[in-house]
Every structure is written in structure tokens, then in C-alpha cells.
């Protein structure tokens, strides 16, 4: 009975999600005639796929040694570093781009150092810059996902490996590789799809129209040509690419089955020798790569932080409210879908992946067209933002919860059912305590994303309802770059504080 109810509500949720994502396409007049791509669109498609693939592979490839080093080493500041890993991902795009430019740009720290040493300049503009920025955003996220995979291998298995005299290579082959096969395709998929819809980063760092993505072609269709059906078609193409990538990743994923441990403490063995040095280098480089642009953001914003205009604080309050509501909505939905997916069904994962490929411009425009006959769009600015932020953040929350929900199901579903535990009792005594670590991480990420995401509020907002990201944009539009930098720092600080608070809560309540 309980399972039926869970399945039904998850199915209803997935259907609502599909409707939310696809109805806007219909509203824009999606038609299936003339589905062929023009030469410019084909070039955009090629560039989009290429940069997304490179970004995903490099992010994931770099994440593995960093995650392994973090999994098997204990050092001062490790906890802080792991928390900071969430930071790049939650930076508003323009803030992150300016931070990256301060480090890697023409006048940036790296080039100043290279120049001082008489070395040639590094140019960030081009495919390398796009990939660099995408790796900056997403590699830390991949590290967190892979690290979670490492932590999910029961300590008993590592002990068994040690007792069998496994070398590090044996451990890799028998324990870590199966885990990676289970975790990496999903992580790569998420990053690939995020980068599919990249627009501002690709254009700004790509150096110009060579770096046209499908999302930019959507902008052109909506803004320059006012050709709604073309925008809808391109948005559908993004969904199709996302679905194809999802199917491919599913094929590549081999579920690991380590079984349950008794939750004893202890992680992977920490081999000494040169491996210690490699781990130290991996951690140091990743730390610098993440910390330097963040430091630039802090330095830019710090001077003006003291005298921010009052509107900034009001907008901050509004953003916090939006983030709180989005988080509650998103986490409930993600948990429901993750629990349904744990029962071996495929559709919850697809439903929870598609929002990644949503073009927020198409989503916003379509929703506007759908709602406008019935209500004043500006009166719905905040509720629409809450729903859209929750939907757009759902894939991340789902990815974090799904593997843990799966092992929870395979390990304890039989026992819970044989004891006749009701859904509420299971939620209270099994699901929440066993999942509190991923729940805290996911809630932190969702809250921070909802703070920073401009999403569709710009399409709906009246003069009174500006959120903090919108206000940063307005400040920049009014030449106030320094105030904007300070407001952006406040945004980053608040986002990070939310992320940190939820993440800590999850770790503190993690049931051993």
C-alpha cells in the first residue's frame, strides 16, 4: 500500500514536471514541420556538444584524484575545503566570470606572473576559456559526488581488502573502480547537460560568435528574429540531447553493490610514499584553482560592503525567502523521486534530469504566455520564481539523494516492511536519519542555487520585487560596478552561509 502511494505520488510529480517543462514549448507554437537545422544552427549544435563534452570529461577526470585524496587523507582545514567545494557552483555567472578574469584574464594574476617571468601570455578567450570556466563551476561538484561515492563504500570492505593484502592498485580495481563506474557516468551526465545550456559563459569567454551555443541561438530566435516556433524547436533539441545523454549514461552506469556495512568509522586506506605527495598536490592545486577566483570576488566586493543601499538588503531578504521556499519544495520533490527511483524504476531519474536542459528563457517566455491570459504576470513573480528555481535545482538534489536512497532501499526495505512500519514511521526513523547527510548537502546546494539563480524572475518582476541577483544586474546596468561587486559579494556570502548551514546540519545529524 505504502509503496503504491509513493509510486503514484512520484508519478504525479514527474508528470507535473514534464508538463512544466514542455507546456511552454507548446505555448510558443512548437511545430514539427521544418525540423532540419540551418547551417548556423548546425554549427551551434556542434560547438555546444563539443564544449559540453570536453567540460564534462575534464571536470570528472580531475575530480577523481581530488576526491580520492580527500577521501583518504585527514588534515587541518579538510572540512572547510569540502564545504568550499560548493562555492563555485553557486556563484552567479557574471560574478564568477569576473572572478575568473581577475585570475586568468589578460590583466589577471596568472598573466602578470607569467609576464614577470618572461613567459608567454595565456589567453582565456576561446574554447579553452569556456572549458576552464565550466570546469571551475562543475569540477568541485563532481568532487563532492565522487567523494560521496567513496564514503559510501562500507569500511568493512576496505578492511577486507587490507586483510587480503590488496595493493593500492588492487583496491582500485576491486573496490574503487566499481564505485567509479557507478558514480562517474551520472556525474558526467549532469555536467554535460549543464554545459549544454551554457550561454553567458560560452559567449563571454568563447571570444565571440564562434562560440555560439544553442541557448544563444534561442536568444536570437526570441529577441532578434521574434521567431517563437524556432525557439521552441531549439529548446526541444536541448531536451532531446539531454534525454540522449541520459540514456547513454544509464547504459554506461554499472550499479555497484557493496551491500550495507555496520556504519563503522574509517575510510579508504591512506598509502604512504609517493602517493602521499600526489594526493597533496591534487588537493593543493584544486584548492588554489577554486580559492583564487573566489578571493578575487571577495577582494572586489569588500571595499563597498559597508555602505550598500537599503534596497540591497530588502532584495536580500526577498531572495532568502525565495530560497527557503524553493528548497522546501525541491527537496521534498527530489526525495520522493529518489525513493521511487530506488525501487528500480527509470522514469523518475529521467524526469529529474530533464530540467537541466531547460532553457530558462524559453521556460520563462512560455510560462508568461500561458499565465498572462489569467493573471497579472508581475503579481506572480515570486511564486513563479520559487517553482522554477525548485524545478531547475531538482536534478542536483536528485543526483545527490538517489544513490543513497537506492542503498537504503536494498539494505533496509525488507526489514522495514516486515516490521510493518508505516510511511511516516519509515520517514521518521529510517529515511531521514539514514539520508540526513545527503539531504543536508542537497538542501544547501538547492538553497544556494535558488539564491543565485536569476532564472526567470527578470521576465516577471515588477519594480517592487527585485531579488538580489536582479539587483546586482540593475546596479551594473546603472554603471555602479563597485556597488554591484559588493552586492554580489553579499549574495555569494549569503548563498554560501545557507549552503554551509544545511550541509553542516546534515553532517551533524548523519546517523552512524
Amino acid at each position, binding site marked *: 500500500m505504502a509503496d503504491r502511494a509513493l509510486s503514484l505520488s512520484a508519478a504525479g510529480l514527474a508528470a507535473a514536471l514534464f508538463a512544466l517543462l514542455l507546456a511552454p514549448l507548446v505555448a510558443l507554437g512548437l511545430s514539427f514541420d521544418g525540423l532540419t537545422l540551418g547551417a548556423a544552427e548546425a554549427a551551434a549544435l556542434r560547438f555546444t556538444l563539443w564544449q559540453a563534452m570536453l567540460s564534462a570529461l575534464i571536470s570528472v577526470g580531475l575530480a577523481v584524484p581530488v576526491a580520492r585524496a580527500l577521501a583518504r587523507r585527514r588534515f587541518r582545514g579538510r572540512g572547510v575545503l569540502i564545504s568550499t567545494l560548493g562555492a563555485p557552483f553557486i556563484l552567479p555567472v557574471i560574478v564568477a566570470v569576473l572572478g575568473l578574469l581577475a585570475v586568468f584574464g589578460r590583466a589577471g594574476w596568472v598573466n602578470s606572473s607569467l609576464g614577470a617571468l618572461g613567459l608567454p601570455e595565456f589567453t582565456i578567450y576561446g574554447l579553452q576559456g569556456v572549458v576552464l570556466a565550466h570546469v571551475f563551476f562543475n569540477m568541485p561538484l563532481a568532487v563532492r559526488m565522487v567523494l560521496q561515492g567513496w564514503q559510501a563504500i562500507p569500511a568493512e570492505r576496505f578492511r577486507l581488502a587490507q586483510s587480503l593484502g590488496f595493493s593500492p592498485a588492487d583496491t582500485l580495481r576491486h573496490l574503487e573502480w566499481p564505485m567509479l563506474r557507478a558514480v562517474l557516468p551520472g556525474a558526467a551526465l549532469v555536467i554535460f547537460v549543464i554545459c549544454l545550456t551554457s550561454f553567458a559563459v560560452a559567449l563571454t569567454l568563447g571570444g565571440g560568435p564562434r562560440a555560439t551555443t544553442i541557448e544563444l541561438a534561442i536568444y536570437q530566435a526570441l529577441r532578434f528574429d521574434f521567431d517563437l516556433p524556432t525557439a521552441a524547436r531549439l529548446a526541444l533539441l536541448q531536451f532531446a540531447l539531454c534525454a540522449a545523454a541520459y540514456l547513454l549514461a544509464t547504459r554506461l552506469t554499472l550499479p555497484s553493490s557493496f551491500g550495507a556495512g555496520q556504519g563503522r568509522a574509517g575510510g579508504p586506506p591512506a598509502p604512504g610514499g609517493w602517493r602521499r605527495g600526489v594526493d597533496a598536490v591534487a588537493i593543493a592545486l584544486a584548492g588554489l584553482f577554486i580559492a583564487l577566483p573566489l578571493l578575487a570576488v571577495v577582494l572586489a566586493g569588500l571595499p563597498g560592503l559597508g555602505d550598500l543601499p537599503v534596497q540591497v538588503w530588502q532584495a536580500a531578504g526577498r531572495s532568502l525567502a525565495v530560497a527557503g521556499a524553493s528548497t522546501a519544495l525541491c527537496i521534498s520533490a527530489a526525495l520522493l523521486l529518489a525513493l521511487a527511483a530506488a525501487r528500480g524504476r527509470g522514469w523518475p531519474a529521467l524526469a529529474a534530469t530533464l530540467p537541466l536542459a531547460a532553457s530558462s528563457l524559453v521556460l520563462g517566455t512560455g510560462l508568461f504566455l500561458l499565465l498572462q491570459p489569467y493573471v497579472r504576470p508581475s503579481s506572480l513573480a515570486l511564486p513563479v520564481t520559487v517553482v522554477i528555481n525548485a524545478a531547475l535545482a531538482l536534478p542536483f538534489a536528485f543526483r545527490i539523494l538517489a544513490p543513497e536512497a537506492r542503498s537504503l532501499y536494498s539494505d533496509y526495505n525488507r526489514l522495514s516492511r516486515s516490521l510493518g512500519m508505516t510511511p511516516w514511521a519509515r520517514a521518521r526513523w529510517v529515511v531521514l536519519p539514514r539520508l540526513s547527510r545527503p539531504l543536508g548537502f542537497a538542501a544547501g546546494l538547492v538553497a544556494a542555487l535558488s539564491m543565485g539563480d536569476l532564472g526567470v524572475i527578470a521576465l516577471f518582476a515588477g*519594480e517592487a520585487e527585485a531579488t538580489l541577483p536582479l539587483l546586482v544586474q540593475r546596479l551594473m546596468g546603472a554603471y555602479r560596478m563597485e556597488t554591484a561587486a559588493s552586492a554580489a559579494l553579499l549574495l555569494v556570502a549569503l548563498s554560501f552561509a545557507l549552503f554551509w548551514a544545511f550541509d553542516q546540519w546534515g553532517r551533524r545529524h548523519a546517523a552512524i
Partner: protein
Amino acid sequence: MNRLFPAAALALLTTAAQAQTPVLNVLTYDSFTSEWGPGPAIETAFEAVCACDLVFSAVGDGAELLARVQLEGAKSEASVVLGLDTNLTAQAAATGLFAPHGQTGGNDLPVPFDDPIFLPYDWGYFAFVYDNTKLATPPTSFEALAASDLKIVIQDPRSSTPGLGLLLWVKAAYGDRAPEIWAALADNILTVTPGWSEAYGMFTAGEADMVLSYTTSPAYHLIAEEDAGKSAAAFDEGHYMQVEVAGKLAAAPQPELADQFLAFMATDAFQSVIPTTNWMYPAHMPEAGLPEGFAQMITPAKALLLSADEAQAARKNALDEWLTALSR
């Protein structure tokens, strides 16, 4: 979330209060209505004379504004649309959603401008802005810029109005030679941003030598920041103008108030706010003249402006040329 309930209550109250105070809804772009734009001062001034409630709704920028007008169609709550520029007005007029403004009285633009549907409220020249403490002798033409090693940041014409303005600037100045100019400029273009603020932000962060903006941009730094370090480079070919206009919607819920607002646009109360909030030239010179500081702005030798129809006819082709030249 408790903010939502007051918001909903407020919406109800506004509806109830409508019986006494009519509401004039003006659709505009974001930076016009923001706390630092002309919107708040103009709202106060107009409400003092109209016995109405002036409400601005804002979208991202001029291009988005036109898209929004087309999306809303005849169902729009707005009576006035403010913030299109002449590169977009032909397309806007073709929608049939706008009504003639019926205003007389001309304007103070440097070129003759008379449009039956759209009334100008401010204007400016596009220009490349640079840091005069780092660059002593700026280029004086596109060709000189192309021959230099200077790096510029421009905006994408597909997502931003200044980007589109630059496209038409080169077209107006060079005609069929435009592709050649773009090809020569390709190695000077550091990058292309989605909108004006990203580009300007990159410039002030020291990333680029010059940025596409307006001849009046240095006035902001001079007046608001007391920083004389920014200048606009004067180009011999002349500078393309951006003329920002407003128009009345044919289906305006408040046609009389819309007319009153369009007439108000020409008055000092509106025009004197423009220079130091929108950082553009007012379309009607205020009695007190321009604020100090504007005198130091360069005056282009030649003002370039394609008519709305010419701009409409040229833009698709100009975009293709631009894409081809820069995609190589």
C-alpha cells in the same frame, strides 16, 4: 514567503483603489525604472500633475521590450511602451500594436527626426570608451582601431541593443565595405558579451582597452565618481546614434493618460532627470541646460542614423556579415 500575502493583498487593494485613482502602466526596460535610473523621479513628477498612479513594469533591455510587447499583444495592461530604439521601431510599428502619438512640438535632436508613432525622449552616440590614464592617443576611426593592437569588448547584436547599434554603425559608415572592416577588427575583439553590463564590467575591471558604450558614459564617472579618467574616442567616420523612443499602444487601457504622459515627456520635469540618471542626452534641452561635465563630452563630427526602415532592412544582412567575419 510571508511577503507573498501582502503582495496579493496589495494587488487586491490596487484593484479596489482603481475606481478613484486611475493607473497608468508604462512598460520599459530595467535600468530605466531601477532605483538608480530616471524612473523614480519621473514617477513622482508625473503623479504630481496627473492625479493618477504611474506604474512601471520592467524587462531586461530594449530588445526584450519589443519581444514582450509582441508576446502581450493587445492584451497588455500597459498604455505606453518606453525604451525602444530606432533600430527596433520599424518592427514594432509593423506589429500594428501602436497608435500614432499625435504630439506636435518637435525635438532637439542633432538630426531631423519625425515619426508619427514614436516620440524620442533621449538619445546618445555610440562610442568606444577608454581609460585615458592608460591610453594617450586613442584610435580615430574603425580602420585605425583595426590597425592597432588594442583589445575591445563589444556586445552581441543578437541579445543586446548596443550590439545591434554597433552593427548598424559600421554598416552606416562603410556600407558594402562592412564585412572587410569586421574582418580587420576580428583580432581586436577580445570577446563579445551578452549585454552592456558584462562588457562594461570587464572594461572597468581592466580586462579590455576599450568598450562599446556611449559618448556620455564618461560623464557618469566624472559626475558621480569625480573620476576624469574615462573618455570616449571620437571617430572620423561619425558616430551612430541611439534614439530612444516611447509609443502609445493602440489598445491602451488609459489612452488619455498615455497622451498626457507622452506630452509630459517633453517637459523639463522629465527631461532634466535624464542626463544624470540615464546618462544620455535629453531629447528636449532643459531650460537649465545640461549638467556640468557634459560639456567635456566629445561631440562627433558627424551623426549617423539609419531610418527605422533602413535599419530594419539592413539588420538581418548585417548580422550575417558580422557572424561570417567573426566566426572565422
